[in-house]
């Protein structure tokens, strides 16, 4: 097993730079998820690790060895593709054994390794079938089987679940995670789905426009986002961003929304007063208030009960707000309610740059 070190890696296609020199440490045996909206360069980065794209600038090292000029097959990696990329003219067995066959392994070894992998993935019954005869989930497992058989140092996953239906996606999420724990391999996983990132990762790397916005453990990113992009990208329903300014009166420091509601701050940390800012509040950090005094008024638009909790979507003037309650309050569309964020959970961001004010 091995770590992957990405140092100042950049990628230029023609005259467009899609990756602007990113630095990422992927520790040995970790499950690292690269996440970001489409076009952020995450797949390109993965393909650069795999050796399918050249590295324009910078370095990528696998297990301490720089692999910039090394062909893919020498990098000791395996990749699972979004569309599975199974060879349609080969049986499941041959698909899984293809790399070993190319490496001129003898047929007994191939059989043994393929059968072991098939056993892990519950594919034993399907070994003689062709990809066409398999369901989406089964194909996905064959694609993983093909990767396992090679016993690589690093597993690369390129949005492997996006072709599956919602239920299967949740199931495969668990299976991939379980597999990772079992094989103790280093895994790099690309997705645009922040829920996949949150549920699977040891380390999340949030990317945007060819830059790394923030990386860290899932809950670290959730609780302590560096900027508004990470704050709103991670977490669903997304964090509310209230416009307003940081103000103070006497010894008390508060965030004053554009509508005049004053939300007390636990510690303004001496943040300059009268500074325009954004205040981030996660939907589950709202409490129902009795009056609109120092609270945010909201007109309920839609109520979405999911059983475990209730999501209320509403409006305060132009501002859309979302709040989640575990208690079973009764809400009616059109009703006016008042919300009060828990002071300890308020996050402040600079209105201009979107950077966190700590």
């Amino acid at each position: 097993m091995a770590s992957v070190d990405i140092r100042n890696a950049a990628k230029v296609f023609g005259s467009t730079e899609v990756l602007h020199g990113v630095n990422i440490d992927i520790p040995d045996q970790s499950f690292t998820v690269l996440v970001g909206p489409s076009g952020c360069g995450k797949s390109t980065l993965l393909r650069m690790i795999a050796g399918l794209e050249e590295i324009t600038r910078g370095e990528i090292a696998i297990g301490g060895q720089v692999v910039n000029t090394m062909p893919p097959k020498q990098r000791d990696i395996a990749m699972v593709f979004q569309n599975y990329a199974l060879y349609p003219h080969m049986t499941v067995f041959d698909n899984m054994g293809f790399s070993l066959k190319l490496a001129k392994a003898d047929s007994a070894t191939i059989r043994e390794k393929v059968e072991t992998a098939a056993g892990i993935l519950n594919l034993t019954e399907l070994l003689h079938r062709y990809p066409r005869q398999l369901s989406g989930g089964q194909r996905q497992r064959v694609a993983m089987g093909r990767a396992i058989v090679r016993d690589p140092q690093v597993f690369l996953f390129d949005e492997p679940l996006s072709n599956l239906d919602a239920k299967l996606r949740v199931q495969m999420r668990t299976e991939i995670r379980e597999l990772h724990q079992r094989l103790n391999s280093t895994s790099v996983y690309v997705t645009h789905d922040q829920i996949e990132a949150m549920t699977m990762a040891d380390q999340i790397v949030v990317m945007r426009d060819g830059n790394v916005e923030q990386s860290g453990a899932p809950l670290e990113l959730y609780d302590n986002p560096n900027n508004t992009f990470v704050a709103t990208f991670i977490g669903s329903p997304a964090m509310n961003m209230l416009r307003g300014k940081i103000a103070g009166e006497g010894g008390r420091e508060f965030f004053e929304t554009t509508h005049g509601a004053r939300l007390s701050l636990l510690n303004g940390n001496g943040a300059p007063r009268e500074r325009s800012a954004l205040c981030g509040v996660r939907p589950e950090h709202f409490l129902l208030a009795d009056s609109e005094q120092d609270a945010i008024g909201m007109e309920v638009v839609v109520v979405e009960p999911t059983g475990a909790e209730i999501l209320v979507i509403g409006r305060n003037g132009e501002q859309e707000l979302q709040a989640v309650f575990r208690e079973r309050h009764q809400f009616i569309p059109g009703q006016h309610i008042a919300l009060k964020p828990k002071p300890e959970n308020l996050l402040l961001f600079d209105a201009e740059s979107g950077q966190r004010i700590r």
Partner: protein
Amino acid sequence: MANAQTANGGTSVLTRWMNNRNLMGMLFMLPAGTILLIFLTYPLALGVWLGMTDVKVGRPGVFVGLENFAWLMEDSVFLLSVFNTFLYTIVASIIKFGLGLWLAIILNNNIPIKAFIRAIVLLPFIVPTVLSALAFWWIYDSQDSVLSWILIEMGVIDKTIDFLGDPNNARASVIAANIWRGIPFVAITLLAGLQTIPRTLYEAATIDGANEWQRFTRITFPLLTPIIAVVMTFSVLFTFTDFQLIWVMTRGGPINATHLMATLSYQRGIVGGALGEGAAIAVAMIPFLLAAILFSYFGLQNRKWQRGGRDD
């Protein structure tokens, strides 16, 4: 629908017919069926029938059974034409396939001015056959051949080549002309086939450790076989029944060296007026053509991995 009809006892016969799926189906198929019958089945049947008579132009013949075929079996010119047809078809098809596949693979890569080059490749296909045959006729002229001229200027040979005068030269020349004409079809169709192979398969194979040659033999070629089967079946059929190129360039000469079954059939039946015999030669091509189709259908096309469904 059945309920609606019984409930509505007074429905007219016409309405009931309009609601009959089978009847309407037959009605919809009628136009196409008629066209097939008039323009395909009738001429074919007439040809087979003519082949079993001794009809000559201007003289109604009588039914002679398989006599024409028995005669042909002992006709050395007919046997030579069969040999020529096979030689022509096999050599031309193999070379067309090889060059066509090669060209398709080149065109499938990212090369500059790709669209322009693809258009050029299609050119031989667009030019009317007779026109290109005439051009080749001139290229192969025994006195003023541009090829001979070039070779002489380059100092490779010292006198003009008699392309169409010598039997073996003539065979090679018409085969070359046929290849030139047939390559675009093979290349463009195979190119279409190549483009249906997902790029990720090659990427997966690269990661699995396949080099370029292995990617071709283990991914490209097997995945291309269904298209190859179709293309080559058509190519073989077109070549086997070729007529225009030969007729314009050599009329089957010299000494019948380039006579194909199609040109011999035309010469005997239309030029010579022996319609019965000409038809018999044409009918004699049918078994070979059928064999080619069946071979491609059962031998190449119907692979297990292509079939849909989840069952084994």
